[in-house]
């Protein structure tokens, strides 16, 4: 057989073997067999001596072409087999992705804290400071500086835990207003503050009463702060906590530390204002008390009420949480049942 025909045959048989090769080892074996130094192609090329000088370069080039083709075929087959091997391995590793993931321990903030933090963040954004104060207060700051002298009938509105006749558990965070006003340098700009914290009332605990609850008191004092500013601010609070679709309305009320005093209602969550059992068919739910700071309160804190004035409001995060999340018993907030605590993680 002529050399060219031999090479052609080696080529054809080689390609067929490669195609049939079903493992990386087998392909390697074929490579060594075909293209190794002792392989048939190398052997065949030795026979070039017997080829005429005219034919020799043609055959040589043909042989090189065959070798290149076989090499490429081996490489390609190798890749195919590797890919198949990986695919087979991956297939064997298939998991039931619907099995549950490994739990990671993660706690939740208390729902009251969520409300307080949300309010703090909003007011911080509007340039308010957050002010703390003592939970064990004196009568002077808790009541007298709030324009509630001893024997004032409005003291009946706040049943108090006294420790001594002069020392008590604070009934509101309003005394922090007085402390902040006394400390503030009005020549450096307005006083804008909120004061969140625990407060205490002499109440028997039941579904709607708790001897311990929370309050966020707010205060703005400047040369020109209006009732309209109060209204706008309370609307911001409602929109921030509950959403834009809620309206705020003000009603006259009475607090010794503000004049005028108002109570703010927001659209009932349950019926969106249509009227239902929750809102006693009014379409509105009372959420907070507010007003323009009483001149006596300003005077007692050493602020000139003919120059400065402003508004104050006090809202209850407990009540807000009850309304917002439909919690029907205030005691849930202080019993710390984990099934209760872990519920509050959603954004809205």
């Amino acid at each position, binding site marked *: 057989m002529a050399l060219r025909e031999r090479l052609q045959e080696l080529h054809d048989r080689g390609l067929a073997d490669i195609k049939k090769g079903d493992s990386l080892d087998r392909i390697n074996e074929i490579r060594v067999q075909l293209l190794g130094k002792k392989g048939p192609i190398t052997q065949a090329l030795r026979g070039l001596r017997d080829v005429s000088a005219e034919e020799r370069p043609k055959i040589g080039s043909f042989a090189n072409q065959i070798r290149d083709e076989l090499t490429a075929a081996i490489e390609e087959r190798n890749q195919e087999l590797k890919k198949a091997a990986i695919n087979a391995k991956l297939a064997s590793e298939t998991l039931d992705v619907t099995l549950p993931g490994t739990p990671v321990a993660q706690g939740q903030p*208390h729902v009251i804290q969520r409300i307080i933090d949300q309010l703090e963040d909003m007011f911080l954004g509007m340039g308010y400071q957050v002010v703390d104060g003592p939970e064990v207060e004196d009568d002077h700051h808790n009541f007298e500086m709030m324009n509630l002298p001893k024997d004032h*009938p409005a003291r*009946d509105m706040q049943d108090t835990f*006294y420790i001594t006749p002069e020392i008590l558990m604070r009934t509101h965070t309003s005394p922090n207003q007085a402390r902040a006003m006394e400390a503030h340098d009005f020549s450096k700009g307005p006083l804008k503050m909120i004061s969140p914290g*625990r407060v205490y009332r002499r109440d028997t605990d039941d579904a709607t009463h708790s*001897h311990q609850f929370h309050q966020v008191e707010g205060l703005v004092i400047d040369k020109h*702060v209006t*009732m*309209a500013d109060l209204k706008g601010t309370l609307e911001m609070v409602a929109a921030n906590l509950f959403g834009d679709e809620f309206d705020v309305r003000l009603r*006259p009320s009475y607090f010794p530390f503000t004049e005028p005093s108002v109570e703010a209602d927001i659209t009932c969550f349950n019926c969106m204002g249509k009227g239902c059992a929750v809102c006693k068919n009014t379409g509105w739910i009372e959420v907070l008390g507010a007003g323009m700071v009483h001149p006596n309160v300003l005077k007692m804190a050493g602020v000139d009420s003919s120059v400065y004035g402003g508004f104050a409001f006090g809202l209850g995060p407990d009540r807000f949480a009850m309304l917002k999340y439909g919690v029907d018993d205030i005691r849930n907030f202080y019993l710390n049942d984990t099934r209760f605590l872990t519920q509050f993680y959603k954004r809205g």
Partner: protein
Amino acid sequence: MKVSMDWLNEYLTLDVDPQTLGEKIERTAVEVDQVYKMSDGMSKLVVGETLSVEPHPDSDHLHICQVDVGEDEPLQIVCGAPNVATGQKVIVALPGAWIAGHHKIKKSKMRGVASNGMLCALQEIGFDEKIAPKAYDEGIYILPADSENGSSVFPILGMDDDIVETDLTPNRGDMNSMNGTAWEVGAIYGKTPKMPTFSLNEDGSRKVSDLLQFSVDETLAPTYKMRIVSGVTIQDSPLWLQKRLWEAGMRPINNIVDVTNYIMLTYGQPLHAFDYDKLSSHHIHVRLADEGEHLTTLDGEDRKLRDSDMVIADDKHAIALAGTMGGLDTEIDDNTTTIAIESAIFDPIKIRKTARFFNLHSEASMRFERGVNKDDNQNALDHAAALMAELGQGQTEQGTGVGSDTPVEPAKVSVTLTRINHVLGTQLTTDQVQTIFDHLNFPTDNDGETFNVTVPARRWDIHIEADLFEEVARLYGYDNIPSTLPYGTMTPGALTFKQRIIRDSRRLLEGAGLNQAISYALTTTAKAEQFMMRDSEPTELAFPMSTDHTTARMNLISGLLDDIAYNVARKQKNVALYEQGRVFYREGDAIRPLEVEHIAGAVTGTLTTKTWHAEADTIDFYGIKGIVDLFLHDMGLSEPVHYEATQAHAQMHPGRTADIYVGDQVVGFVGQVHPEVASDYKIPDTYVFELNLQALIDAPHDQQQYEPISKFPDVTRDIAILVDQSVTNADVVALINKRGGAHLADVQLFDVYEGVHLPAGKKSLAYTLTYRDRQSTLVEADVTKAFDKVTAALEKEFDAEIR
């Protein structure tokens, strides 16, 4: 106050439905609790006439009545009331009627006899026990003889009248009367109310000044007056008067007492009627009681008075607790003929204290506390005398006896248009503001800018310009006030360093798997005193409401253990909680406690749940310590943290508790709750920590600085040593660090072994030492040299066997 629409319509012609009026009052003046009719929820209650009343053959108390209800045939009704008799006009609940308590009346048989309805007592058609007339306590109510058979009983009893029930704030005591309510509603609708009129005929032959003398302490009673009506007959009041009273929630008693109450409802002026003939002298004193003086009040209670209680007295003894409750000895009874009517204004604070002390909050004391209209004091007295004379067929004696009559000057308040708009944020005009004052019926003049307002005595709550701002704002309408936000100098809004740390603390512990708890800060003294980190006296309430909450806490852990107990009792075995809050430490003789911010955690069971795939992360000492480690690491403190075993905490496991140090200051402790304490709380093994967060806030904090990452590779060496049980990890690590050389960067414990394969009293500890040089690649020989020094030191110091 329960305001009758029928009565209000005598003052004002209002073409408005009661719901709308209620809404308007709520938006403009005071809260409205409800708008209702006494007949709400009831139906088919008609006038019946008992044609015959026969005893039931099978009963000793039931009667078989034939009742004419205006139909062709009488109804047969079996009735058990003792007072049922032939010829009475009665309240009949027809078959299908709804009566009080959501009961439906059906045809039935009573002991075999058909009963086609029910004869009703007032209580059965919704009258409160406290307001139904006493005469009918034991039986059915008898209607006036001229009631038409078959007609509805509602108009006869005033039950179809609309009632607007207001809930008054303490400043609006003026609305505790029909007159005051009418003034307010008039202001809302821009109408002037017609005040009540009466004609007083002083037809008695005697002068009051001859019948009574007075010694009145004017500081106690700035106004004290009396009139006398004689020759009266005590009897039931006419139905119109009874209706007024029970619609307002008061019980009709007799014509004299009813008049005092009716006048109080009308004018807001409480009155008291004494039986003149029962006075032991005709000299009336208004004075403070003698300490320990006794008085039997109308309710039959013998009261031991204090020297701060105000009394009305004759020469011998107290005859009434002023403004709060009358005395039994001078009570009006069926034989009374001469009435001394008292119309006074008392010191509200004294009244309040007495009412509170004796728990005698009456319609009268409440009005005295909240204020009485001086301008109507004489009117109320005159009107009462006229009405008593009329209803008791008596004569009013001449003149008024005056014990005191301190004039009250009307408040004159000036306010400018500029100030009103400045405070309210409005753009009201002079005319708008003037109109509001006109509607309030406050005499007012203005020069276009300044309003000079004369406030009538009936609005004693108004003294200063801010009070007028409120009047303008509410009558203008809060809905009409614009919404804006404060503007002016910008102020920075930022948390303080302390507030930021407190917030970060919470995030950290939540990240570690603990849920935030908020427990009660008031607990028992015993629990307040557990787990304390320093000596302190308890801060206790003077008058606690419950024995569970008497004392301000001095630790947070006890509250968390209460929470865990609550969970465990509800089959929640895995509980991980933390709390951030204050503890209250009090020095021996200090009155006020020091409030210190703490943070504490408590875990029982597992932090994560066991799954098909992962073991549960069961809490143990090292688990809770890991949380504390993480927490303190992230606090970024300058000084090093270390732990020392302690047995100083009585409520903690003596072998599993460590004090936590920052530098040389103790900032808290961590460990297992003493099993006996856990058992007291009824909880399983529980691990806790409590930290003085304030101390961590106050401790020096590192400034954050970037530390370049070494370009050269670390070299590590492992070492395992066998040492005595008594040698602690902290001892070993300290020594390794001390002798580790300049390039020792880290020491990590990776194995602890104690057990059968080791000699008794020995343990094996294994560490990885990491060497690092930031300047160059470490030379193997240098590391070996440094490592050998450590090994030698361990052998020497702890007699360690290198394994």
